[in-house]
């Protein structure tokens, strides 16, 4: 057997690294040029596909009772092992936690906030966009059930200060959903003469959702149909880019494990046919170290 002309170090470790993060296995082996090619090409394809779809094209929708055809695109995509493993974990979390709306909290939440406030002020209604901070607190409701109350402190678009109290029964969107924003539904209350009156509500309000709670989270059937409707042919394009990225990484993983398939480029530069470099004479050419070696 011919001695490798590049130092593959530990091929198993290198291939696992290359599988998890394209380019990392080759970086570990000291093959910098290949590491750059693999990481730039594969991550670019994957990233562009993700950006076309707003990050919604990559997910694991398998599981008990799910048709296997839904897994076909994921099988190709998960050639990128790192994101693929994250998607599988997210799929399991999603099946465990579901899409339940949050109506109670274990601890207070303080977060940035965007949305509109609709207020009934006499004969004129107020409907203005407000940005600022929202504070949500767990509380026991008037019937003894856990509920959420809160407060919004921010500014309207015209610069006026907004400070409103949110009524019992404030609801947050599901913890897990494939969207970087988490919806907030709440009524606004004001005190008039010792009585608490519901005087308005939040509209299109949301707080940021953490990356871990939205990246690669499976879409519901309805969300999937909406994505098709919104993107049209770009849905397929995004799918193709991410699938090809995954499939190309299979080549990179094998290269990290076993070295280049055809040889080390020592045969004549005038050879045009791929098959020529597979000849034993080319593979057994005088050893010359290419790339990193120790």
């Amino acid at each position: 057997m011919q001695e490798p002309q590049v130092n593959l170090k530990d091929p198993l470790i290198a291939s696992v690294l290359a599988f998890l993060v394209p380019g990392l296995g080759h970086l570990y082996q000291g093959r910098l040029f290949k590491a750059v090619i693999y990481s730039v090409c594969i991550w670019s394809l994957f990233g562009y596909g993700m950006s076309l779809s707003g990050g919604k094209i990559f997910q694991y929708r398998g599981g008990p009772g799910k048709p296997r055809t839904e897994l076909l695109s994921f099988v190709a995509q998960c050639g990128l092992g790192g994101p693929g493993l994250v998607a599988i974990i997210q799929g399991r979390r999603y099946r465990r936690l579901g899409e339940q709306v949050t109506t109670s909290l274990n601890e207070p939440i303080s977060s940035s906030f965007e949305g509109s406030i609709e207020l009934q002020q006499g004969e004129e209604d107020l409907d203005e966009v407000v940005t600022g901070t929202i504070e949500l607190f767990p509380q026991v409701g008037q019937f003894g059930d856990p509920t959420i109350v809160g407060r919004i402190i921010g500014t309207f678009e015209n610069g006026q200060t907004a400070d409103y109290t949110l009524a019992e029964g404030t609801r947050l969107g599901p913890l897990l959903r494939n969207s970087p924003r988490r919806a907030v539904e709440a009524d606004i209350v004001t005190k008039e003469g010792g009585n608490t009156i519901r005087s308005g509500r939040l509209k299109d309000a949301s707080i940021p959702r953490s990356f871990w709670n939205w990246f690669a989270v499976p879409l519901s059937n309805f969300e999937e149909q909406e994505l098709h409707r919104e993107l049209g042919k770009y849905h397929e394009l995004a799918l193709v880019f991410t699938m090809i990225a995954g499939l190309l990484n299979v080549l990179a993983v094998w290269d990290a494990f076993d070295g280049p398939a055809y040889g080390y480029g020592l045969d004549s530069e005038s050879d045009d046919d791929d098959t020529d470099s597979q000849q034993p004479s080319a593979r057994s050419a005088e050893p010359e170290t290419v790339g990193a070696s120790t």
Partner: protein
Amino acid sequence: MLTLLAQANITWHLLPLAAAISLVYNASRYEAPSRILQRAGKHFVMILFILAMILGVLIALSYQL
């Protein structure tokens, strides 16, 4: 750049896709950087040529339809 590409005709997406496929495929076949780039360039042109041929055939078949 990405925005421009996203707004362009969908066919233009073929260029970066073909370039990435050529580079990665040839990087997995050879070790010498010069050989990888040379082969990738040839494969890139070949992919575009074959697809242009297919496009030509399709246009010819759909002529006056």
